[in-house]
C-alpha cells in the first residue's frame, strides 16, 4: 500500500523465521493454487497463512472461506493417527478399534486381495468419494481386474456430464466456463455453486461490472442468486420443461441460429420414420456409413460432410428404398412447437408465468442475434473454409446438480444444451467455453470394460461411454455384471457408476454378493448415501451363521468420519498439505478455456503421525499384488513409490499424468518423454503448468481445424475430424429399439426394462414427471399427500466439504434448519424455529424450522451435511451438528417406492443411473403438538461414537498463533495531545 511507513512501526512479522511454499488446495472441485507461509517458532514449523496464489490460472489470488480455514483442517483433532483394525469381538459400527502397524495392515489386505484377484476379481468393489485422483484409482481397479469401481459422480451430477458429452462434446461441471469477459446474458440453472466455486465468483464480478444480465433459475434465493438481476423461483424437477418451453418460443418466433445448426450439429441429417419396424428412428446412411442429408443443390442425397451441398434443415423426403424420412430439425420443431411445450402450459407446472418464459427466451434471442460480437481473428474450419473472424453470441449458461439430481435430469440437461445450440451459443465468444481436453467427439471413444477374469487387468477402464446395447456390462441372460448395475438395462449410460446402490446391492446379493468393499473418502455411512439410517443397518447385516453380509470393509480417509466406525480395516491418509498429488489432464483437469493446465500438490508440512498418502498405498498394494503395469518380469516393483510412478509411467508414448515440462530436459509440453526432473519444474513454477492456446484456436473448437489437429496431437481426441453436436441421439434410439424388441442385438427381457427403454430413451428431450412421483401415482398416492419438494444444498463456506468439523467454519454454522416459504408456513400455522416432522414415504425426521421469503412456496430445503454423528469429527456428544442438525438423506430411498409385483428399481435417472435425490417429496407437520413431547432435538438420533485409540481429546479452547503478538503501542504524543480519552474535535 503505502510507499513509506508513516511512522516507525514495530517489526510485526519475523520474516527470517518464515518460508513460503506453493501447492494446491484440496477442499472442493476448484483446486485453487495456494501459497502457504510457514513459520518456525523454534518448536517446528506451523502454518502462518494460506493465501490464494496470485499467478494461478484457477483462482488468480483469491481464496474462499474453506481455503482460508486450512489451518483448522490441519489442526483437526479428528485426524486419523494410525492404521486400525476393528476390535475382535466388537460389532461393526460400534467404532471400537485396535491399532496395528502398516505392515500388518497391508499384509492382511494383500493376502485377501490376492485371493480375490486370483479367483473372481469382481469380489472387490472399490468406490471413491470426492477424491481428485480418479485417473489413478481407475487405473488401479483396471489393473486389479475388477469392473466394480467408480467415484461419486453417480451420486453427484453425472446427468450433467453425460448429457453434455452425448450432446455437445463438452459440459458444465468444471469442464467449461462461461466466457465472462464477453458474455452479456448469463443464465444459471439450479444448485450450481460448488462447480466451480471461486472461478464462478470471479466471473460473476467481471460479468456484472460489464453490465450483463444475470438470471438465476432456482427454487431458493441464497448464494449467487442473491446478486442475480432476475430470480425465477422454479418448482424443482421442472427445469427441463422450462428449457423446452423456451425452445418453443424460439421456434415459434423464428429466432434460432440456422447456420450454426446446419454447420455444426446433426440437425440436417435424415431420420427414418417407420414406427414399429426395425430401423425406425435411425439415421439414413450412405455407402460409407456416413449419415446422409438432403442436398438442395443436387436435389438428392449427399453425405453430411459435403459442406457445399446446401443441406435442407427442414423437410420430409423418401429414401431410395421407399422409407419416409424427416430431417432432425423437422422432428425437433414438431416436438417443441406442440402445445404441451407452450409457455402457457409449461407455466402451470414450472411455477413461472408464461409471459416471463416468453420474455426471457426473447431476451436471449435479442442478445444472441442483435448484440452479436465479433473477434477479428481469422481461423479455418475443419472443411478448410476460411473465416475472417469469430462471431460471438454472448449468451452463457451454467447448470449443475439442481437440474441433474432428478430422475428426468438427463433429458433436462440435454434440453439446456438445445437452448444453447439454437442460440448458436456454444464455444463462441461470449458463450459457454470448453476447457481442454474438451470438446471431445460424441461421446468420447472409450467403452466401459465389460468382462473380468482372474489375474488379468481389464481391457480398458471400468467406466466409459456406451453407444449401443452391445456395449453394456451384462451377462448373456441380461443380468448386470457390475455390483452397482451400471451399464445394465436399468442404467445403460451410467458413465460414473452408481455408487449409491453399491451397499444395498452387495448386502442384498443382487446381482451378487462381494467379499471386500474399499471406500476412499466416501462417507457412505452418513451424507454420501441415500437412506442413511437403513444403509447403516445394511452395513451391520449378518447371515444366519453370524458373518457379515458384506464380509470385509476397508476405509481410507484422513479424518474420523462416520464411515470409519464401520470399517474392518482403517487406512489413515494424510491431509492435503502433507502429500504429493497430481491434478491431471487424464482426470478432471484445471484447464482454463484458453489454456491447457494441470497442477500438483507438494507436501508443505511433515505428518506428525503414522499416516501414509493413499496414492502411495495404492502403488505399493499394486506392486504387492503384481499388477503388470507396476512390476517387472521378475515381479519386482517397477517404480519407487508414487512420485516415481507419476514421472515415468506413460499411458501412451509421450503421455503421462503430468503434461508440463515433458522431454528429458523438460523441453516439451503435453507430449514428450518422461522428465526425471518434472516434479521439480512444477515446484519452481508454483506447482502448476499452463499452456496457452494461440488466438486462432480459442473458439469454435468443435470445428476449428487447427485446434482439432492440436487436440489429436495432445491425445485429447482420437482423430481430428469435426465434433458434430447431436440434437438427435441415435445412441438413445438404439436402446429404445432394444426396448421395443426391434433391435438387431442384445435386448432386455424384463417388462420394466422394456418399458423404461421405450419411454425414456427418447432421442429428443421430453419432460416427464419424476419416477418416484409416477410410482406413487400408480399406487394411488396423490402428489398432494406429499405437497412439498425437499431439496438441499451446501453453504458456500462448506462447498463440496467432506468434513464440517472445522473449528472456524462451524462457528459460522453448526446447525442446519429446514427452510420454508414464510407465507406458506403461516398458512400452515407453523412458527419460526418450531420443530416439525418431515415425512416421506420412506420415513420421517424431526427438524427445526425456519421461515424465509426467498423460497418457492412448494419447496423446503436445508443445508446438506451439517448434521453429524456425535463423536465423529472430534465433535462432542452435545454438538449442535449432532443434537439439532439433521440429514435429509434418511427420507430418500435408494429404490423407487415398492409395490407388490413391481421390480425393485433404483431411484435414479433411467438413462444414466444418476441418484434422484432431488425428487424427494414430503409432508410437514408440527412436532410439538403431541402431549408430553417436548422436542428439543432432531430425530433420528445416533449413539455417540467412542474416541479412536491414540486420539487426543478435542480441546476446550483454541488460541492459534505462530508467534507472540507484537503490540502496536499508542504513541505517548498521541496520549498527551488528546488525553487518555479521545478529545472531540
Amino acid at each position: 500500500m503505502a510507499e513509506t511507513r508513516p511512522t516507525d512501526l514495530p517489526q510485526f512479522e519475523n520474516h527470517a523465521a518464515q518460508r513460503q511454499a506453493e501447492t494446491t488446495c484440496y477442499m472442493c472441485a476448484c483446486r485453487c493454487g495456494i501459497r502457504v507461509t510457514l513459520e518456525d517458532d523454534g518448536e517446528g514449523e506451523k502454518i502462518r497463512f494460506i493465501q490464494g496464489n496470485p499467478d494461478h490460472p484457477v483462482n488468480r489470488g483469491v481464496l474462499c472461506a474453506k481455503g482460508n480455514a486450512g489451518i483448522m483442517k490441519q489442526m483437526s483433532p479428528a485426524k486419523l493417527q494410525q492404521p486400525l483394525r476393528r476390535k475382535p469381538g466388537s460389532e461393526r459400527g460400534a467404532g471400537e478399534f485396535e491399532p496395528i502397524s502398516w505392515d500388518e495392515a497391508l499384509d492382511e489386505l494383500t493376502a485377501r486381495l490376492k485371493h480375490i484377484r486370483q479367483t473372481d476379481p469382481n469380489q472387490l468393489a472399490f468406490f471413491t468419494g470426492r477424491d481428485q485422483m480418479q485417473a489413478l484409482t481407475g487405473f488401479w481397479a483396471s489393473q486389479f481386474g475388477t469392473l466394480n469401481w467408480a467415484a461419486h459422480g453417480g451420486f453427484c451430477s453425472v446427468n450433467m456430464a453425460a448429457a453434455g458429452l452425448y450432446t455437445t462434446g463438452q459440459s458444465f461441471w468444471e469442464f467449461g466456463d462461461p466466457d465472462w469477459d464477453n458474455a452479456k446474458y448469463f443464465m444459471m440453472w439450479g444448485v450450481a455453486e460448488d462447480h466451480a466455486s471461486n472461478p464462478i465468483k470471479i466471473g460473476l464480478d467481471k460479468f456484472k461490472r460489464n453490465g450483463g444480465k444475470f438470471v438465476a433459475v432456482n427454487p431458493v434465493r441464497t448464494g449467487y442468486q442473491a446478486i442475480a438481476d432476475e430470480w425465477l423461483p422454479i418448482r424443482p424437477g421442472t427445469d427441463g420443461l422450462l428449457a423446452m418451453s423456451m425452445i418453443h418460443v424460439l421456434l415459434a418466433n423464428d429466432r434460432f441460429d440456422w447456420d450454426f445448426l446446419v454447420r455444426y450439429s446433426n440437425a440436417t441429417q435424415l431420420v427414418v420414420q417407420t414406427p414399429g419396424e426395425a430401423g425406425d428412428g435411425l439415421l439414413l446412411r450412405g455407402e460409407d456409413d456416413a449419415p446422409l442429408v438432403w442436398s438442395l443443390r443436387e436435389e438428392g442425397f449427399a453425405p453430411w460432410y459435403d459442406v457445399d451441398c446446401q443441406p435442407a434443415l427442414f423437410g420430409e423426403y423418401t429414401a431410395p428404398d421407399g422409407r419416409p424420412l424427416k430431417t432432425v430439425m423437422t422432428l425437433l420443431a414438431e416436438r417443441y412447437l406442440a402445445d404441451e411445450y407452450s409457455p402457457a402450459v409449461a407455466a402451470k407446472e414450472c411455477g413461472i408465468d408464461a409471459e416471463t418464459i416468453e420474455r426471457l427466451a426473447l431476451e436471449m434471442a435479442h442478445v444472441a442475434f442483435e448484440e452479436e460480437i465479433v473477434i477479428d481473428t481469422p481461423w479455418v474450419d475443419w472443411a478448410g473454409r476460411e473465416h475472417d473472424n469469430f462471431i460471438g453470441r454472448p449468451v452463457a449458461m451454467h447448470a449443475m446438480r439442481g437440474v441433474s439430481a432428478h430422475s428426468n435430469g438427463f433429458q433436462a440437461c440435454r434440453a439446456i444444451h438445445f437452448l444453447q445450440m439454437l442460440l448458436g451459443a456454444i464455444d463462441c465468444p461470449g458463450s459457454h467455453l470448453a476447457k481442454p481436453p474438451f470438446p471431445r467427439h460424441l461421446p468420447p471413444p472409450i467403452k466401459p470394460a465389460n468382462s473380468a477374469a482372474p489375474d488379468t487387468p481389464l481391457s480398458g477402464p471400468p467406466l466409459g461411454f456406451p453407444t449401443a446395447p452391445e456395449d453394456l456390462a451384462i451377462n448373456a441372460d441380461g443380468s448386470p455384471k457390475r455390483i452397482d448395475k451400471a451399464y445394465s438395462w436399468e442404467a445403460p449410460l451410467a458413465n460414473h457408476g452408481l455408487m449409491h446402490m453399491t451397499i444395498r446391492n452387495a448386502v442384498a446379493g443382487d446381482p451378487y454378493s462381494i467379499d471386500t468393499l474399499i471406500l476412499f473418502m466416501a462417507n457412505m455411512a452418513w451424507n454420501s448415501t441415500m437412506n442413511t439410517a437403513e444403509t447403516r443397518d445394511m452395513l451391520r447385516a449378518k447371515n444366519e451363521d453370524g458373518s457379515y453380509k458384506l464380509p470385509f470393509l476397508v476405509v481410507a480417509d484422513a479424518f474420523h468420519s462416520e464411515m470409519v466406525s464401520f470399517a474392518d480395516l482403517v487406512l489413515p491418509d494424510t491431509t492435503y498439505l502433507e502429500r504429493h498429488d497430481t491434478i491431471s489432464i487424464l482426470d478432471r483437469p484445471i484447464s482454463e478455456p484458453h489454456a491447457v493446465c494441470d497442477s500438483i500438490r507438494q507436501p508443505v508440512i511433515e505428518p506428525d503421525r503414522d499416516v501414509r498418502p493413499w496414492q502411495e498405498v495404492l502403488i505399493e498394494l499394486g506392486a504387492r499384488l503384481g499388477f503388470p503395469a507396476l512390476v517387472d518380469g521378475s515381479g519386482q516393483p517397477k517404480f519407487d513409490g508414487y512420485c516415481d510412478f507419476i514421472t515415468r509411467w506413460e499411458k501412451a508414448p509421450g503421455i503421462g499424468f503430468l503434461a508440463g515440462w515433458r522431454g528429458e530436459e523438460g523441453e516439451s509440453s503435453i507430449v514428450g518423454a518422461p522428465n526425471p526432473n518434472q516434479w521439480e519444474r512444477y515446484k519452481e513454477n508454483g506447482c502448476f503448468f499452463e499452456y496457452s492456446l494461440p488466438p486462432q484456436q480459442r473458439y469454435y473448437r468443435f470445428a476449428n481445424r487447427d485446434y482439432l489437429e492440436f487436440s489429436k496431437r495432445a491425445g485429447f481426441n482420437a482423430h481430428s475430424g469435426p465434433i458434430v453436436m447431436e440434437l438427435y441421439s441415435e445412441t438413445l434410439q438404439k436402446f429404445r429399439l432394444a426396448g421395443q424388441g426391434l433391435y438387431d442385438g442384445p435386448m432386455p427381457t424384463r417388462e420394466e426394462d422394456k418399458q423404461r427403454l421405450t419411454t425414456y430413451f427418447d432421442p429428443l428431450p421430453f419432460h416427464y414427471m419424476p419416477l418416484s412421483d409416477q410410482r406413487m401415482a400408480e399406487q394411488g398416492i396423490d402428489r398432494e399427500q406429499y405437497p412439498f419438494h425437499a431439496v438441499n444444498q451446501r453453504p458456500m463456506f462448506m462447498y463440496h466439504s467432506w468434513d464440517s468439523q472445522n473449528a472456524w467454519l462451524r462457528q459460522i454454522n453448526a446447525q442446519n434448519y429446514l427452510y420454508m416459504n414464510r407465507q406458506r408456513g403461516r398458512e400452515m400455522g407453523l412458527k419460526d424455529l418450531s420443530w416439525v416432522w418431515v415425512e416421506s414415504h420412506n420415513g420421517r425426521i424431526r427438524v427445526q424450522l425456519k421461515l424465509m421469503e426467498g423460497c418457492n412456496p412448494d419447496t423446503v430445503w436445508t443445508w446438506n451435511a451439517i448434521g453429524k454423528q456425535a463423536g465423529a469429527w472430534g465433535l462432542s456428544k452435545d454438538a449442535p451438528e449432532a443434537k439439532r442438525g439433521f440429514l435429509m438423506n434418511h427420507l430418500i430411498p435408494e429404490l423407487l417406492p415398492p409395490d407388490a409385483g413391481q421390480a425393485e428399481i433404483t431411484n435414479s435417472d433411467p438413462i444414466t443411473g444418476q441418484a434422484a435425490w432431488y425428487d424427494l417429496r414430503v409432508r410437514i407437520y408440527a412436532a410439538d403438538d403431541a402431549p408430553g413431547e417436548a422436542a428439543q432435538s432432531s430425530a433420528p438420533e445416533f449413539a455417540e461414537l467412542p474416541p479412536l485409540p491414540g486420539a487426543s481429546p478435542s480441546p476446550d479452547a483454541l488460541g492459534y498463533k505462530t508467534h507472540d503478538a507484537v503490540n502496536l503501542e499508542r504513541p505517548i504524543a498521541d496520549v498527551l495531545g488528546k488525553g487518555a480519552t479521545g478529545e472531540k474535535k
Partner: protein
Amino acid sequence: MKLGLVIDLDTCVGCQACAVACKQWNTSGTTGALPDYDPYGAEPSGLWFNRVRHYEVGDFPANRTVNFPMSCMHCEDAACVDVCPTGASYKRAEDGIVLIDQDKCMGCNYCSWACPYGARELDRHSGTMKKCTLCVDRIYDTALPEAERQPACVLTCPTHARHFGDFDDPQSAVSQLVAQRRGEGLMEDLGYAPVNRYLPPRKSAQVASAARSEGGSLLDRLKGWMGRQNRSATSPSASQTASQPASESGETEA
C-alpha cells in the same frame, strides 16, 4: 491519509471468505491470538473482526437477499475512542486507523457498547478488547509484494467486492468507486461518521426482447421452413472434393 474499506453489495455473495481470511491472518497478527471457545462442543464461538450478515428485503416473490459484511468502520469521530477510560483506544493521526493498544486495555467493554456496528469483541483469554486493525501489520510491510500490502479480507475476496485505500485522495480507487457508485456510510443519519463505504446494488440490468414474430399457426411456421435454403448466402466454399473426415468411430483410447 484516511484509510478504509469499500464493500460492494452488488457483488457480495456472502461466501464468508473475507471473514475467515481475517480470522486466519489476525490470529497470528498484532492483536492475536483470536481465541475460539468450545471449538468442538455445544456452543462453538470465538473472536472475529469481520462477520457477514445475511438479510432478506421485501416479500416473496419480490424479495431480495442482501449479504452484508461488517467490521470496524474506522470512524472519523469514533465513539469507541471517546468512551475508553484508559486511553487504549485511539485513532491514528497518520492514517485514521482505529486501534486498541493491548497493553493499556483493561477489557471493560465500554467501547463495544459505544460502537453501533458491533465491531469490538472481548478476548476472554487476554481480557482485552480486539477489533479490525485494517491489517496494519500487512499494509505497511515492505517485505510483502506491493500488491499484497492490503488487508487479508480484500486480498481474498473472490468477487472482488472489497477495496482498500485512502479516502483523502480523490483520485484513489476507493474514492472513485464511491463517487461513481454513490457509496454510503452506515448509520450516518444517526450521527456516526464511518469511513468505510458500502456500494449499493446496481440497478438490475435490462435487456430488450427480440421482436415477436408475426406468423400464422405453428403448422404454417413449419411448412414455411420446409425445403428452404440456408438462411444466409452460401459461405465461401473451399474447392475440395468432399471426403469423409477422420474416422468417427472405430478408434478407442488405450
